[in-house]
């Protein structure tokens, strides 16, 4: 019996030790409190620093708790280098070739990717309903080509992700054809992790002051926004701005006052490169489609560092203007880019 009692005493001590360790761990873990909305240091200047709209941008607030390594890597978006197009449109039947051509015309991927960079590519993989031919999800060849270009430019890691609303990410990634293409190209598909969404302040937000945002897209060295240009029943068109809804939670809550809220989101997320897939454009029944009769072979890819200009140009493929799309217009009004396609240098390439 005494032997047993001794064993018990030892166990108790071990238990106390364990509790102390757990308490210490708890204290340590609570250092990073998730309940405080995070802020993000935004670039002081936008690519359109010369435009008057940019002057209205409020100075970025000092972050209360900076997201992991964000500010260090968050360089101001590059202004258009000399001799390089502000926006490029490549047309042709080979999605890979026109993607390469469009990116090359705006200065090549080396303009955006530095050696050792972490890149996130955000295509539109909204649902797992159908294959990419139906024009609801981004063309896998376009995405894979961007992965290849990033890796060739020296990127250390290229991740591709979206948050599908119809079906699981696993099935949507697979059915869209993007998973296979990206993995063949050397990139990784990431299934967004609930734990990495944080309520983040949107300093420039006009309608929303904060929203739960996937932190990795804010901390990556480069975020490439790769929407598919398609019809949308509420927004009229789903383009690069709308595509950013795939990096936040509570997406349903953005639908009220969608235009301004998407623009607010764009003011926070700021992809430094936008590549619009307009290879197979869904002209009706968007955003999910389902009829190949609604799909038009537009065979174009648009690339620009300016998300607003890219969207404004993409709108013209549907016989509309940037002005007609509420979120594009709102983003322009916030100084996030230009709607004036006549004032910028556009290079059209046939590839």
């Amino acid at each position, binding site marked *: 019996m005494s032997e047993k009692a001794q064993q018990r005493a030892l166990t108790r001590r071990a238990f106390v030790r364990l509790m102390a360790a757990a308490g210490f761990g708890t204290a340590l873990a609570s250092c990073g409190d998730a309940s405080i909305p995070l802020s993000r240091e935004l670039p002081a200047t936008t690519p359109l620093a010369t435009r008057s709209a940019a002057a209205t941008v409020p100075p970025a607030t000092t972050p209360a708790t900076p997201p992991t390594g964000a500010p260090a890597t968050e360089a101001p978006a590059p202004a258009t280098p000399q001799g390089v197009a502000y926006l490029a449109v490549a047309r042709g039947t080979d999605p890979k070739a026109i993607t390469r051509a469009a990116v090359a015309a705006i200065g090549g991927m080396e303009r955006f990717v530095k050696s050792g960079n972490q890149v996130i590519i955000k295509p539109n993989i909204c649902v797992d309903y159908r294959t990419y*031919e139906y024009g609801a999800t981004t063309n896998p060849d376009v995405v894979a080509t961007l992965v290849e270009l990033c890796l060739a430019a020296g990127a250390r890691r290229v991740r591709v992700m979206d948050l599908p609303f119809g*079906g699981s990410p696993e*099935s949507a990634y697979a059915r869209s054809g993007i998973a296979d293409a990206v993995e063949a190209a050397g990139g990784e598909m990431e299934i967004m992790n609930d734990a990495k969404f944080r309520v983040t302040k949107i300093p420039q937000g006009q309608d929303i002051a904060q929203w739960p945002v996937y932190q990795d897209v804010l901390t990556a060295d480069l975020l490439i926004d790769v929407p598919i240009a398609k019809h949308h029943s509420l927004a009229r068109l789903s383009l690069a701005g709308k595509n950013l809804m795939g990096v936040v939670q509570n997406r349903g809550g953005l639908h009220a006052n969608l235009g301004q809220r998407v623009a607010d989101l764009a003011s926070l997320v700021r992809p430094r490169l936008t590549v619009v897939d307009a290879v197979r454009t869904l002209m009706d029944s968007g955003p999910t489609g389902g009829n190949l009769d609604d799909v038009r072979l537009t065979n174009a890819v648009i690339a620009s560092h300016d998300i607003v200009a890219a969207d404004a140009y993409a709108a013209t493929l549907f016989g509309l203007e940037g002005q007609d799309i509420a979120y594009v217009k709102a983003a322009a009004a916030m100084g996030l880019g230009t709607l004036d396609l006549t004032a910028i240098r556009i290079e059209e390439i046939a590839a």
Partner: protein
Amino acid sequence: MKHSGPMKKARAWRRVRHAVQILALLLFVALLIYANAQSPRRFWADLFARLDPLTMLTASLAGRVLLGGLILAGFTLLLTLLFGRLWCGWLCPLGTLLEWFGPRRARRKAPPQRWRLAKVLLLFAILGAAIFGNQSLLIFDPITILNRTLTTAVWPAVRYAVVQGEAFLYRLPLLWGPLDALHNAVVQPIFQGVQPIFALAPLLALFAAGLVALNWWAERFWCRYLCPLGGLLGLLSRLSLVRREVNDACVQCGRCAHPCPTGTIDPGDNYRSDPAECIVCLDCLADCQGEGIGFRWQPPHWRPGGLQEYDPTRRQVLAAVGASVLGIALTGVEPIAQRQPATMIRPPGATLTDFSALCIRCGACFRICPTQGLQPSLFEGGVQNVMTPRLVSRLGFCDFGCNACGGVCPTGAIPRLALEEKQRTVIGLARIDRDRCLPWAYNIPCIVCEETCPLADKAIQLEQVQVLSDHGQAGALQGPRVVKERCIGCGVCESKCPMGGEAAIRVFAPTAAGPSLGAILRQPPRQTSEVLESAKVRHGDSL
């Protein structure tokens, strides 16, 4: 103490049995985890349900079909005819768990022997009901119990604990690097993206806990007195060819009687046992001092095992069958027999089969459903349909790109529909509550239901509605409307509706009424374009 040769050998056999038990349990859990909606592994995921002769027999009887699973169940029966209740002592994963979780020292006073009768009567009640096309009592089959408990309670709880623990650590930004590596390599592949949620999880966990708790009354209480599968295998074991024997070398030391987990070794009868109750665990062999016990090949002097005091009389068997028939009759007058309840939406294709006759209540479909829309019902479908699946669209929808539930169903209650066919199968009908719908009731623009509708020709159409704002200004809004002929009732609209609480669009039982005026006036369907044909060539069945 020096062990004699036979004793050593017996202990070796016991180790082999423990190894087999562990492997069988691990296989059971592994199959459960391994199957997911992308790869339902339709043959392997339901391996144990197919090995279970009780479920296969009742499903074949009730559904009037010859199931492929009968072959595997035949293997179990063959094993039983050879060695007795080997299944119970070596393979049954529930039996293994019940063996592991129990008191260190057993109670002296076990329930009376006559209680063993209960499992046989339950068996006859189940078989009697099956002849009349009912399988409600299969909620008491050991494989369905374990599958259901792991699926709805244990596994979700494990996932919740792991993911919450992970989320807690994610609060510390420094840890993100290693946590990401762990999450992407281990947590995500094993647990997948959706947290399983089951309203009945606590209830089912309590039921399983109750079975374990009974072990404090008598060892393997469930296996001894209650398990209907044990009853079935026990009856067959009376005919088994290899049986436990006590011979003249027995010194009447009584060491074997104490450890017997089913308490069937009778000191009053020269330490003999009933082959119907012996689960061939071989513990008695290991504890025998001499060579008084052996498991031996019976022929050529084979005789069926003797009758026991607790064997049911003919009258009792008839009473059990009669009671189950009476039970079917009583529960058969429920309203569900008259009309499908509005919220009782079955898995896709279940209306094409004799669903309630074929469903063995195993819960494989709850486990595989990638949105967790399939939930076990309690009394929503009446007493006869307890633990059958129903789609709760607010929790999760029937994913347009998924036909996994048909793939894992061991009895074909949910048919194996090709994806294309499943996408045309109507399971319900959506209804918009205009008094709550954001655009209709509150002038708030919202098209989420239309946006998520997966059909090529959307079952939700947007009407331009002229409205007046609070200040009396005129404006236009889009208001959703359901096209009855197109809606398949998948429920993604209900699932995604941004309205708080109950959705403003809900899916109810489909209606046979129709067609609507629109369908009568409709133009002939559009021709499928050539592009579709080329896409089909490229992607085959996935379209």
